[in-house]
């Protein structure tokens, strides 16, 4: 069966099994991954996958099941299991399928150029990434250079008449380089992504890994202080990803977000503007419709420092008396939809990184954080995370530092943003995020 037939058959079988409503999400795709080490292929894979997930609704209860057997018998069994699973749930007056469906036309989610690339050429590209990192003087090793791509089809159908699908491709590469030796060994990562390998620049990816490692060689633990902090785009993206997860209406309604009750409030410096955009053709998480068939869209979350809205799926929208923002997200056919961000986009400001350093005067430039997810209290927003980077002295980048923590709380951090950089880039950190570097007025830095 093709995917459209699979989803239609699954919906039909769930209704036959006694479901009042049903929805089926099916995927199939192929992916490749190439890992090189020391000028040789370390591993190479070529893999196919397929599966279907069914949501069945019975008396206001919903159950979910998935399976990888896409024969008629296999699909029917998944549909029945979903219907049976629903028995164990409590009824939810806000649950159920969306009342309205639709798709947003987005060009360029799939690139035909991907299929023009032979495996040999992809291996060459991966080797070029490694070479670009290794060739920089001071780089002692390239731990990993990895290329990966995927092409897949998705189909969604439900018992209210929605049926649609789309194709998408992705290609990405990253490298992790070492500089220095022994206890002074430092690591750096470089990354690039796009719809096909033509979008990947091996010199830039390998070079970035090398430069990020080299910049930290000789790092020492700094003295504790309170000072301005510049977050580079990688680190800003990690924080923004975390903040985005706190703007989910699910987290808000369940009392797990520090932003609950803050809608309409000024929660950030007016320089800060943030949106969720499921329609940007360059955004890795873009798609014509979300995980339950609502059309994708752009949602402004923070503008002029003010929190405008949360992100909703159909269930949280009904509960909150709102409309969905098209943020029912699916990890894969293996899980039911739940509220999630698509692509978070932090609007660029003005100024180069050097200008942010100048504004900071004396402070800290953070290029890596560790333990963000364990170090932030999602409810109070207080955090203390491990970091490394460089000192900023007299408005310029100075000596490298490591083994320190930066601490604040998310609201204070957002309110004390002093400047947003101009150069944004896509980063696959904390979801899919497009972010520039940002300057925070003050944070607690703990070191020696």
């Amino acid at each position: 069966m093709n995917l459209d037939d699979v989803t239609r058959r699954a919906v039909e079988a769930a209704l036959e099994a006694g479901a009042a409503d049903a929805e089926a999400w099916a995927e199939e795709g192929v992916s490749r991954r190439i890992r090189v080490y020391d000028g040789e292929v370390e591993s190479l894979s070529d893999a196919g996958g397929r599966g279907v997930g069914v949501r069945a609704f019975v008396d206001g209860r919903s159950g979910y099941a998935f399976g990888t057997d896409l024969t008629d018998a296999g699909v029917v069994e998944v549909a029945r299991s979903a219907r049976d699973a629903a028995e164990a749930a409590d009824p939810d007056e806000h649950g159920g399928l969306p009342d309205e469906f639709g798709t947003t036309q987005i060009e360029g989610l799939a690139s035909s150029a991907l299929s023009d690339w032979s495996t040999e050429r992809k291996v060459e590209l991966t080797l070029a990434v490694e070479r670009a990192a290794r060739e920089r003087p001071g780089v002692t090793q390239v731990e990993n250079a990895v290329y990966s791509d995927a092409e897949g089809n998705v189909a969604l159908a439900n018992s209210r008449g929605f049926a649609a699908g789309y194709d998408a491709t992705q290609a990405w590469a990253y490298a992790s380089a070492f500089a220095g030796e022994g206890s002074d060994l430092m690591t750096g990562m470089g990354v690039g992504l796009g719809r096909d390998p033509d979008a990947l620049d091996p010199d830039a990816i390998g070079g970035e890994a090398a430069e990020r490692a080299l910049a930290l060689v000789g790092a020492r633990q700094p003295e504790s202080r309170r000072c301005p902090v510049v977050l580079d785009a990688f680190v800003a993206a990690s924080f923004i990803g975390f903040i985005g997860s706190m703007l989910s209406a699910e987290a808000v309604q369940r009392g797990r977000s520090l932003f609950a009750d803050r809608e309409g409030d000024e929660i950030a410096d007016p320089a800060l503007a943030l949106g969720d955009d499921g329609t940007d053709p360059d955004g890795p998480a873009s798609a014509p419709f979300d995980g339950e068939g609502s059309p994708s869209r752009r949602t402004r979350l923070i503008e002029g420092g003010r929190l405008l809205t949360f992100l909703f799926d159909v269930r949280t929208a009904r509960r909150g008396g709102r409309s969905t923002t098209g943020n029912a997200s699916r990890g894969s056919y293996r899980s039911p939809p739940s509220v999630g961000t698509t692509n978070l986009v932090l609007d660029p400001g003005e100024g180069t990184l050097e200008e942010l350093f100048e504004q900071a005067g004396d402070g800290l430039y953070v290029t890596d954080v560790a333990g963000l997810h364990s170090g932030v209290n999602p409810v109070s927003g207080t955090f203390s995370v491990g970091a490394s980077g460089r000192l900023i002295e007299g408005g310029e980048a100075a000596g490298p530092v490591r083994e320190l923590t930066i601490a604040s709380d998310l609201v204070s951090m957002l309110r004390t943003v002093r400047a947003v950089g101009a150069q944004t880039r896509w980063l696959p950190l904390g979801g899919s995020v497009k972010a520039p570097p940002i300057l925070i007025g003050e944070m607690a830095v703990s070191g020696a």
Partner: protein
Amino acid sequence: MTLVDPALAARVLERSLSRGGDFAELYVEARHGFAISLDDGRVERPQGGRERGACLRVVVGESSYYGHVDGHAEEDLMRVAGSVVQAVRGEATEPAALRAPERGNGHPVRTRPETVDAARKADLLRACDEHARSLAAEVTQVRASYAESRREVEVFNSTGRAAADDRSRVRLAVQVVARRSDRVETGSDNRGGHAGWELVEDDPEAVAGKAARRALALLDAVDAPTGRLPVVVGNGFGGVLLHEAVGHGLEADAVQKRASVYAGRLDDRLAEPFVTAYDDGSRPGDWGSDGIDDEGTPTRRTTVIEDGRLVSYLYDGLRARKDGVESTGNGRRESFRHLPLPRMTNTFFAPDDATPEGLIGEIDRGLYAVSFGGGQVEPATGDFVFGVSEGYLIEGGKVTSPVRGATLVGNGLEALAGVDGIADDLEIGSGYCGKAGQSVPAGVGQPHVRIRQLTVGGTAA
């Protein structure tokens, strides 16, 4: 062998080596899972899944070529073998004839979780919700989740190995939110094992109670101190520090790439003579235990640190062949969609003869880190960071105020050398370990352990 007929496996292996290769392996898996959660007082998201798939790999020198497929049919397996060998260039080699199947260590499963009604699993969660809310009016939210999985695994390889395993795991996790005026805090706890329904059926309220008490304690918490302090790390899940700061650096892939501070340190004294640590995937019923690893090697106990000296790394087959040693049974993978890597199973410090009270009693000013929210380590440098989810000040040899927002920052080698006391109360907790995009169940544990000094990054700067 119930998933794939050995005669078919032999044909697939033969095809896999038809263009050369030093080693070929067929890994076959059938997975069944069920999960259900309770949030906001409501049982929701009951979900089940079934997957059948296979992973085929061919090793040529130091290169691995592999592919995976959803399905076990002859045409699925032959197609993936055909696609993998296309990347190999050489003369055909012959796999050895398959031997009789091996089964590794058994782990007792009294009641198969899939035979228990979903309604009883929902009731388990309701009992947790009720108990947590009964402890204090400040408990405002309870989130509980139950998950079970069964993985039937078969491994066939070109050395003639045929091995099988049947794994059942269950896990109950509870997270509690407590609120007092503007103060909102969370606490969590879990219980998991390679076991049946019996593990969670007995006193699930204990898990809810521990999560609630953690959240409630934090309501009275003071800001964490900052600076270098002696730290006593709690037993059980406190062992995540050993797991992250030492264990990952002992995994042979990192060692062989010299991406580990422990590379070249075999036989060196790294800790005080009373420090011994194991990785043990054979411990009956523990969360990180299996019968065989995901390459068919029986699980076993490996001493990694003996009387303070580093005595072994953790190996899968590929890295063991490179070092000319035997696999330690640590070749693990998330599923048939992944290549095996050297991974920890259950990793823990051996108990010594101190007591927790004794370790704490000798500290004038320090931190008692009972449990961590998680952590991260850079194996190449050994630098680590951990968020303390339940911690207390130690003042004048006594545990005093709870603290919030504490982070431990340090270096694995330094922390290991700084262990200056180990208690006698070993416990193993259950967690998920992520590496190279693969998540596997890992047991972490230890008795109470004292570290002379660590950098505590607090919020009270």
